[in-house]
């Protein structure tokens, strides 16, 4: 093993066996498929029961950022990052705004993508095309950032045995193999393993940290000495930031196309609502422990910079290597981080491929049969993954900022979905004007020298407010003159 590697020989073997098992699951998904159709490939035949549906929702929603980025944010911002627990719960509140109405519609009309619903509800090719384009842009960003994260992790834990670039290529090939073998079935089944690994890993690491570093109460004196900023009274701007984050997340993450695909894939309504109930509880058992760990880490290891702070959990664990069995805990953390990232990237890739196949290619080739469309979807998965890998390795950091605002842009499609299921009278023109206003104002604030957070609110939140307001105004205007 390379010098400086965090993983032991046994840890490397465990990781290798875990990755190999994902390919085998890919084959299992292929053998379980019933027909060569888009519905079977992209929604697993709409037959997911509660265990698989809940675990695939859980693993997909908790990305590498939830495990590493959240810990870094909690280290830097202290208890203020409790907002992370609140917004992960509030995503389910976002689903409640549309899922109870969208789910029966998706069953009745056999929707596969978010574009299917938009086309059905508004009968507008322009609106559908814009929403599909925004979705693909946001998902590509999601894939890119997570692929970069997996490259850094593999390079770091293997002590350079895997270079950044080869680490990305290696993981991408595994993901695209099992995805093209079994489609959503393989992705959801691997997500189920990844979800268990993530959940178990976080709880075990939380227990280990509490035993060896102490609880917040036991670290009270150390907090005041090393992290007094955690005890500054929150000001008005902090409260505005808190509200702005909640609005952005509720409307942004709850309309992720891969999340909507999982709503469509539920076997029945009781399965869907029970899975969402479990999702409501998971931030208390996943995000909260991570935040507490990172805050305790700030008391013990003060003054880390941004990059170092994102490795706070690994740092805390690496100081305990004299304790027997700690190499197993470190392996578990690495496996959980890799699992969290893979489950996010594979779901985003599947969603991108389905959007392209169903909402772009099938519109150009309406005569193509289901077998041909499924084949095109698989080819597109390889192409899009190859492109994302190349960009993740080669994209210069100077233009990296261009793709950092996915959530603020994606949130602009929320009115089309939420109003689409609730307000029967709203026309595609009202939604289009709202979308133009929301996207336009968000991009204007983000891409020009204007402040990107006027009055402390995210550009995407102001854009969303304008979006809803313009839809309302246009709708009233049309009613008045009709």
């Amino acid at each position, binding site marked *: 093993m390379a010098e400086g590697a965090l993983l032991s020989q046994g840890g490397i073997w465990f990781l290798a066996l875990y990755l190999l098992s994902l390919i085998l699951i890919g084959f299992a998904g292929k053998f379980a498929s019933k027909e060569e159709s888009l519905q079977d490939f992209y929604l697993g035949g709409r037959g997911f029961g509660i265990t698989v549906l809940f675990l695939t929702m859980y693993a997909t929603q908790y990305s590498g950022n939830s495990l590493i980025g959240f810990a870094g944010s909690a280290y830097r911002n202290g*208890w*203020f990052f*409790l*907002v992370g*627990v*609140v917004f992960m*719960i*509030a995503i*389910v*509140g976002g689903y*409640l705004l549309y899922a*109870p*109405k969208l*789910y*029966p519609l998706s069953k009745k009309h056999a929707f596969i993508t978010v574009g299917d619903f938009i086309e059905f509800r508004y009968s507008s090719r322009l609106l559908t095309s814009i929403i599909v384009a925004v979705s693909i842009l946001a998902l590509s960003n999601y894939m890119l950032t997570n692929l970069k994260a997996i490259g850094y992790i593999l390079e770091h834990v293997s002590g350079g045995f895997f270079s950044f670039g080869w680490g990305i290529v290696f993981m991408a090939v595994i993901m695209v193999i099992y995805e093209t073998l079994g489609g959503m079935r393989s992705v959801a089944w691997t997500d189920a393993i990844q979800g268990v690994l993530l959940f178990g890993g976080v709880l075990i690491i939380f227990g280990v940290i509490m035993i060896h570093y102490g*609880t*917040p*109460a*036991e*670290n*009270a004196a150390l*907090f*005041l000495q090393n992290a007094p900023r*955690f*005890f*500054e*009274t*929150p000001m008005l701007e*902090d*409260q505005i930031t*808190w*509200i702005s984050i*909640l609005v952005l997340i*509720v409307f942004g993450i709850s309309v992720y196309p891969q999340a909507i695909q999982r709503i469509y894939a539920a076997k029945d*309504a009781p399965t869907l*609502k029970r899975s*969402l*109930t479990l999702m*409501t*509880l998971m931030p*208390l058992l996943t995000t909260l422990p991570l935040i507490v760990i990172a805050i305790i880490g700030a008391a013990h290891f003060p003054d880390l910079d941004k990059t170092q702070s994102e490795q706070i959990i690994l740092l805390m664990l690496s100081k305990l290597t004299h304790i027997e069995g700690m190499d197993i805990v470190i392996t578990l953390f690495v496996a959980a981080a890799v699992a969290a990232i893979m489950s996010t990237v594979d779901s985003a890739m599947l969603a991108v491929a389905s959007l392209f196949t169903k909402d772009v290619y099938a519109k150009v080739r309406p005569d193509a049969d289901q077998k041909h469309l499924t084949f095109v979807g698989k080819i597109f998965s390889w192409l899009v993954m190859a492109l994302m890998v190349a960009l993740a390795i080669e994209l210069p950091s100077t233009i990296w900022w261009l793709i950092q605002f996915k959530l603020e842009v994606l949130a602009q499609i929320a009115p089309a979905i939420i109003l689409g299921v609730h307000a029967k009278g709203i026309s595609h023109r009202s939604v289009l004007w709202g979308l133009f206003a929301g996207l336009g104002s968000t991009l204007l604030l983000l891409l020009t020298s204007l402040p990107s957070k006027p009055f402390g609110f995210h550009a995407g939140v102001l854009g969303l407010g304008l979006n809803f307001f313009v839809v309302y105004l246009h709708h009233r205007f049309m009613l008045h003159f009709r």
Partner: protein
Amino acid sequence: MPKQTKRAKTTTVLLLSFVVLFCTLPLLDSTPYFGIPLWVYLSFGMTLLYVVLLVFLLEKRWDALGDG
């Protein structure tokens, strides 16, 4: 319960859940108790109340949310 009344009550609980959600923001000062700032206790309490409301809506009012 008549369908209309149930739907109206469900809408009220849904709106209330958003009020509770925004009440999670840090409102109190940061005097430490057991190593945790005071505002965190209120914020976390409101978070738990928000969870209860969401679970109630999901488990008891799913059909009413889908009606109409």
